[in-house]
């Protein structure tokens, strides 16, 4: 009897690995195709798409696509812009949204629930519907910086960062997570004489690792994939991000190999960021049930 149970367990384990391996392969296929194609000339790349060769390092392989993509597009500038805009926005967003959520969950003030409902309602408003009003707004916004007083934010980094710092989803994630923290902890801290700022910094945030990771990854993806907004507010190559740069390759005769090389390069920061935070991300999903 014991042997049969052990066999069943072993079989289930094998089946589980087979299914998971198949799923992993399906998810890996696009990435493998992208990387393999980035080394192939266009004609071979297109012909290989009809067979398994599309996923194999076979045929005429070279770094030509990487060289040509680099000369067609200032990849370094675009990656730098995207990483800078994304990095700064993620950091500021984590700070602003966690502070907002802290206030919604732990502080008592008039209109709190109404305001939270309004913020959550913004989740159902597509960005496309507010893009033009937002464009008109930022084109007339004043700014005081190192260059002095200016009107209009177009063609800057700030126009790509500031409108994206606060968002309903990130606030919602923090609110949900903070609600699950033990109230006793907060009350004990208050009894001990800690200020709200101290509680935020020394009690709540140190416990918020998983939600910080989740919010950071989701925000990172949103920001790194920005297309429409930079398209309409940035008219100078100096400030252009990677996704707008992708359009450079769609000419009358599309350079597919170069596109794959470009995509391979710009995927590296995303993968690196995810790999760094993946453990905390998975922990957060497991604990909150939030799906990314």
């Amino acid at each position, binding site marked *: 009897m014991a042997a049969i149970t052990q066999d069943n367990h072993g079989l289930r384990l094998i089946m589980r690995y087979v299914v998971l391996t198949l799923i992993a392969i399906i998810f890996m296929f696009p990435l493998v195709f992208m990387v393999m194609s980035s080394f192939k000339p266009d004609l071979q790349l297109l*012909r290989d798409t009809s067979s398994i060769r599309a996923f194999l390092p076979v045929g005429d392989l070279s770094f030509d696509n990487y060289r040509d993509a680099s000369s067609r597009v200032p990849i370094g500038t675009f990656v730098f812009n995207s990483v800078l805009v994304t990095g700064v926005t993620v950091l500021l967003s984590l700070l602003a949204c966690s502070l907002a959520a802290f206030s919604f969950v732990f502080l008592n003030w008039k209109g709190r629930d109404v305001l939270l409902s309004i913020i959550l309602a913004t989740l159902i408003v597509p960005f496309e519907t507010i893009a033009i009003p937002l464009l008109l707004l930022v*084109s007339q916004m004043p700014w005081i910086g190192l260059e002095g007083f200016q009107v209009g934010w177009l063609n800057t980094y700030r126009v790509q960062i500031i409108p994206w710092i606060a968002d309903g989803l990130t606030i919602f994630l923090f609110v949900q997570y903070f609600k699950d923290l033990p109230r006793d902890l907060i009350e004990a801290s208050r009894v001990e004489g800690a200020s709200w700022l101290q509680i935020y910094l020394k009690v709540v945030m140190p416990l918020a690792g998983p939600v910080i990771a989740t919010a950071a990854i989701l925000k990172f993806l949103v920001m790194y994939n920005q297309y429409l907004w930079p398209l309409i*507010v940035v008219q100078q190559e100096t400030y252009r991000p990677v996704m*707008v740069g992708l359009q450079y390759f*769609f*000419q009358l*005769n599309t350079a597919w190999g170069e596109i794959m090389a470009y995509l391979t390069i710009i995927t590296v920061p995303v993968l690196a960021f995810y790999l760094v935070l993946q453990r905390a991300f998975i922990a957060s999903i497991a604990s909150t049930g939030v799906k990314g």
Partner: protein
Amino acid sequence: MKLGLTFGAALVASVSWASLAAAQTELSMWYHGAGNEVEANILNGIVADFNASQSDWTVVVESFPQESYNDSVVAAALAGNLPDIIDVDGPVMPNWAWSGYLQPLTIDESIIEGFLPGPKGYWDGQLYSIGLWDAAVALVTRQSTLDALGLRTPTLDQPWTGDEFMAALDAAKASGNYEYPLDLGMAWTGEWYPYAFSPFLQSFGGDIVDRSTYLTAEGALNGDAALAFGEWWQTLFTEGYAPGTSQDPADRDTGFIDGKYAFSWNGNWAALGALNAHDDTLFLPAPDFGNGPKIGAASWQFGVSSASEHPEGASAFIEFALQDKYLAAFSDGIGLIPPTTTSAAMTENYGPDGAMAVFYDLTKAQALVRPVTPGYVVGAKVFEKALADIANGADVADTLDAAVDEINTDIERNGGYGH
């Protein structure tokens, strides 16, 4: 003393250079060719020559990717951030002029008298834009294909009739040597549809909109001629003459070269690739479906934005760019059709014995600009959807009627677009 004199002279010289530089007014220019190195090099060369040729103006170019260029311009117009010089796709120009993004061009129009009609951007009786090239579409095939199928070679004077064209497709189909007789480029979307396919409709006697008033599409897009066109168009796909909207883009790029198609409806920009692959490649004129053979015309053009405070400088640059040597340079660089006979003679491919000279003749003989109206931008999208739907089996009459309603509603909503 000597050192002091030298220093003084250097100071005077540097101050003079500085004042000269300060005297040059900067003109901003937006261009759709980001990512196209050859095109960018030619344009930058023209700009450098212009900047060095006079002391009043300095043109500074900002390039945009073509796919998103129009969106960038419209957004900039809303935000009040347009540059001095913009380039604009020919059929879109009337919309931008009507919307107030462009101001009339003040160049010496005697310079463009000898230009092909396509590159001249007239709207409401005024010149708003001018192109440095044109583009054309031809029926690409091989002499060996015509010989094997026993077909006569159509000429500009004697193009194939609609029946001859269909007989040619039947012959190709019957030979069993091709996956499809005809490649229309259905894998391409967007402007390709009205640019490449509305000339078929016009050859049948219909159009996207009634050009006599530009106030309705009724009759033009759903009259008898348009219905005949629609039925013919659907037959191409239902009878297996051409791959439909699910055509693999790879096949569009290489299918003709690989021998999958006997005929390909393609532009002059793809001509060199076909010639390099098969030295007996032919570029045939469009067939005549009863109302004369037609192909599309007008490509990207230069204009002056309404926001420009220096239209005289912007016009001076555009006039400067219209020199034959620059028109020829663009043609040699990116394969497009030079707009004058003199510049064509200076090119590698469009001179009297040039491999692609036929495209110049095709443009001259068959080109018809797309409807010159601000409403074209909407009409073009409606037309694209209607053709895709018909190709996918939608009822021809219902689809064209719905397209007419949509176009007419848009015209009404915009007060007739000033017509």
